[in-house]
């Protein structure tokens, strides 16, 4: 499926002022949704025009990879690379839900071939290599195909000396690929190290959730790290931590705000300001002082 199809369903209206009054009198049922944070009922169109940010409380809703890219880059500028690259089931993993079936289901449910989209685009007219992960696809876990697509994005950015912008979301490694999955951490981190050594800018956006092997590899090796409000970001899952330390977790544990306070991310950025912030940051990192 060409990426352009993913865009057609929605209108990318950016920087719409939230909280505008809505005339709801003659709307059909079902276009109203309830914000999980503030429990307010919000008109779905309002959520969409507000980049899935609740106009009531500012909660940032989940995005598909396609929406993420659409919100981030100039309309129509995205050209996917490596779109035909997908996972196989190298270990014939059958414990629990068989992996082959899970892959098929994920493809059907998302219309995607893998959990990350990568390609070329422009952000407010600045050329970038861009990627976005989609949590709906087996928790955006990093198997061989995700690792390969991300590595190629790093390599493309390196070869063309074009800045890289990655919107990260992931539950961690894809255990159904065993050690092949773990080694993607080393592979993507090595690719990130090469890009860094070549002084090509790399900006990461950590969204909800960014956990496990992805956080512990390419995602946090960026020159500048932004995070979305309230995104969960960490290495170990909160339940494992809770079991290990046998006590409750502190309030806001592993939240983007907590990571900011602990010095791990450069800033927490509202989704509605992200495109401009990324463009501005790119201007600095690509400027050589001019």
């Amino acid at each position, binding site marked *: 499926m060409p990426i352009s199809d993913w865009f057609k369903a929605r209108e990318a209206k950016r920087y719409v002022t939230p909280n505008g009054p809505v005339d709801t009198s003659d709307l059909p049922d079902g276009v109203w949704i309830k914000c999980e944070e503030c429990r307010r009922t919000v008109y779905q169109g309002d959520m969409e025009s507000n980049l899935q940010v609740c106009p009531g409380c500012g909660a940032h809703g989940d995005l598909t990879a396609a929406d993420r890219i659409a919100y981030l880059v100039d309309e129509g500028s995205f050209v996917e690379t*490596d779109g*035909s*690259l*997908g*996972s*196989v089931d*190298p*270990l014939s*993993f059958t*414990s*629990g*839900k068989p992996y082959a079936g899970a892959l098929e289901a994920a493809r059907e449910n998302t219309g995607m071939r893998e959990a990350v989209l990568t390609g070329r685009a422009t952000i407010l007219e600045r050329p970038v290599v861009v990627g976005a992960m989609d949590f709906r696809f087996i928790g955006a876990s990093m*198997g*061989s*195909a995700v*690792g*390969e697509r991300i*590595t190629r994005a790093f390599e493309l950015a390196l070869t063309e000396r074009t800045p890289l912008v990655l919107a990260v979301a992931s539950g961690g*490694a894809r*255990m159904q*690929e*065993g*050690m*092949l*999955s*773990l*080694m*993607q*951490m*080393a*592979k993507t*981190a*090595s690719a*990130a*190290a*090469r890009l*860094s*050594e070549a002084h090509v800018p790399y900006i990461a956006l950590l969204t909800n959730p960014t956990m*496990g*092997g992805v*956080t*512990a*590899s*390419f995602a*946090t*090796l960026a020159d500048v790290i932004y995070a979305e409000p309230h995104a969960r970001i*960490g*290495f*170990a*899952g909160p339940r494992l*931590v809770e079991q*290990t*330390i046998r006590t409750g977790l*502190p309030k806001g*544990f*592993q939240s983007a705000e*907590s990571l900011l306070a*602990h*010095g*791990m991310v450069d800033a927490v950025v509202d989704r509605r300001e992200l495109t401009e912030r990324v463009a501005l940051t790119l201007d600095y990192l690509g400027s050589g002082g001019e």
Partner: protein
Amino acid sequence: MARTFVMEFERPVAELEHKLESLKRLDLTAQPDLAAEIVALELEIEKLRETLYSSLSAWEKVQVSRHPERPKTQDYIEALFTDVVELHGDRLFGDDGAMFAGLATIGRRRVAVLGHSKGRNTKENIARNFGSPHPEGFRKARRVMRLADRFGLPIVSLLDTAGAYPGIEDEQRGQALAIAECLATLAGVRAPVVVVGIGEGGSGGALAIGFGDRLIMLENAYYSVISPEMCATILHKDAGRASEAAACLQATADDLVRLGIADEIVREPAGGAHRDPEVVFEGVRDAVTRALDELADVPADELVSRRYERLRKTGVYTEGD
């Protein structure tokens, strides 16, 4: 030697051994057949152990890899290396006993050594956090990686950890970032990196010092993206199905060679490395020095390129329609 820890699958052996000890306490002169019986029983025990160990399941190997008497990083350092200079601290926050770092000599080669350090007893285990590093451990390792890089010292890295420690403060002090920085640093070290899986190889905490130009695995070591118990918990909400998960994860030494991730296996005696550590030390010494010899003349640039290409080939996927 009385062993206090018996693995489930070794129970038949343990029972025979118990019987053997009872026999040996009897008066040989009063029962002339006893000597023969003892010899027979000893043979039976040996045969049973060899049979068991010739076809260990993945889960059984995981148990062997975690055996409390299994040789630890410190044992390897004492046995294989001379002129050891341990280096402490990350120069940022602390010194982590769960991560060994230092300079040492193996054969005629001077190297930097990294290794997850489990304790050999409870007291040591508490000091070493049972071999699960805090961010400080990874940052110490990274510091020594950079030292090795600057001075062209090969790195020998010994893997033996259940994983990075999943504590609240570990998360707050950037466990993920500390591991990521290790990976990026290790990728660029301009000297040979030889990794040996000596016991547990638990996920990102192992990988942080766990890839390079060669991966040597002990026969009963494992190296996995996730522990079998946690995998079973996620898949079945039942850690008791770890055996099934262990098989599926394909994380034994044999599996890793088959998958093209490990290069070489050092055989262990029947009963595991702890039954005859000297044999295993000898095997590791041989494999490591051979690897160092092979890598010694590769120019640094090529070494780093090859290391990258090695990772680039790791992964199985499909492309095209």
